[in-house]
């Protein structure tokens, strides 16, 4: 079979700019009354299997300054390793666990998510990948959204065999994706946009 060839070019990216919060988290930036809530602010809407966790994701620039104008979205599997199943368009049922979250970076550059710890998802090699959360990061000064993942410090054994982590040739840089466990149910990951500790970003 012939290789398919795209017939259209992807629309080029432009920066989200300094006011991304107006469009994507208006209630957070004090423009109430248009949307009832900011989309993605709640990921859990009922009884959900799995360990409840908080992810604090801090964005830091190459000068060591936290980004207080950034925005992070996450996408993850549920505790059983499944992504939320399709829902018919225009049906009213909100899934108990959405798998998708969106949070603005606060004054300290931290985007905080209340979610559950994801289960393991099969990787391209058929083996389960380590529990992980996919990240997408935009802000002023970022010309095209940055994609990476968050892994968990307390999953050392699973991390050892993870398909994606093992693609990072420089083992020291694997650590840039692994969130530190702070205490029960709280994880912290610093995303360094550049510098000595620059996070590994993906071309997916």
């Amino acid at each position, binding site marked *: 079979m012939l290789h398919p060839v795209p017939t259209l070019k992807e629309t080029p990216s432009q920066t989200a700019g300094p006011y991304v919060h107006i469009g994507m988290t208006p209630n957070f930036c004090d423009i109430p009354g248009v949307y009832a809530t900011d989309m993605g602010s709640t990921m859990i809407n009922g009884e959900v299997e799995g360990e409840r966790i908080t992810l604090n994701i801090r964005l830091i620039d190459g000068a060591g300054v936290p980004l207080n104008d950034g925005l992070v979205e996450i996408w993850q599997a549920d505790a059983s390793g499944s*992504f939320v199943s399709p829902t*018919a368009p225009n049906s009213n049922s909100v899934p108990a666990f959405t798998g998708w979250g969106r949070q603005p970076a606060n004054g300290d550059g931290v985007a905080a998510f209340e979610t559950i710890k994801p289960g393991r998802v099969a990787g391209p090699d058929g083996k389960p990948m380590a529990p992980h959360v996919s990240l*997408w990061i935009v802000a002023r000064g970022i010309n095209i959204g940055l994609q990476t993942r968050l892994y968990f410090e307390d999953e050392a054994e699973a991390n050892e065999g993870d398909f994606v982590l093992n693609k990072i040739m420089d083992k020291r840089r694997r650590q840039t994706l692994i969130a530190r466990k702070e205490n029960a149910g709280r994880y912290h990951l610093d995303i360094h946009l550049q510098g000595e500790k620059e996070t590994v970003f993906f071309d997916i």
Partner: protein
Amino acid sequence: MSGIILPGADGALYQRDRAWHPAADTPGYKSTTFRAPKHSLLALGPTKSEMSGPTFGHEKLGALDNDLIRNFSQDGSDAIGQRMIVYGQVLDENARPVPHTLVEYWQANAGGRYRHKKEGYLAALDPNFGGFGRSITDENGFYHFRTVKPGAYPWPNGGNDWRPAHIHFSVFGHAFAQRLITQMYFEGDPMIWQCPIVATINDKAAIDQLTARLDRQNTTPMDALAYRFDIVLRGRRSTMFENKLEGN
């Protein structure tokens, strides 16, 4: 909000043409200086995690969510400015419509002022203009909204840099790896060619792709101009599912 995994969802997307997009480090746009990653990106094959993504088909959008002229009105009157309809089709690189996907947009008011506490430009706020809205594409991938034309405005970058009139867009598609943020400009605006953010894109044809076309046919007589802005998301390489799926 829920997720969807299309059959063939493990199939790769076409590789992103990074030369078509802006590079990370673009000195003319100074904010990139400390925010551009310096390492090469790690090429990642397709995995279920990024080839799936959230869908929003069942979100209850408000009746005015796609009406920026009215959705923040405090006293019942319309926002000030040149009235217009912006519409278009979301497609993938295979030219297939992308239905039931969320499109969000935000912009300055007619004077070039954003409703944001950090915004210091002296142009006046319009008390009846919030400056944002959202749509879900229909079964053919179309979205539309009503707004006023945003003004150009100066910004601190060079000594006297101005942004051309523009509207910010955020689009999802059906895979997290399709996620896109961009900006729409207006056909014929000479300011486009003086803008350091536009100039982060190298290819003139790519800049043209961000330029909405005046559409006289869809103008509402005695009311609003119409501009058309189509958006193309990454498409899937897989051929074996091509007869079955929307946005395959």
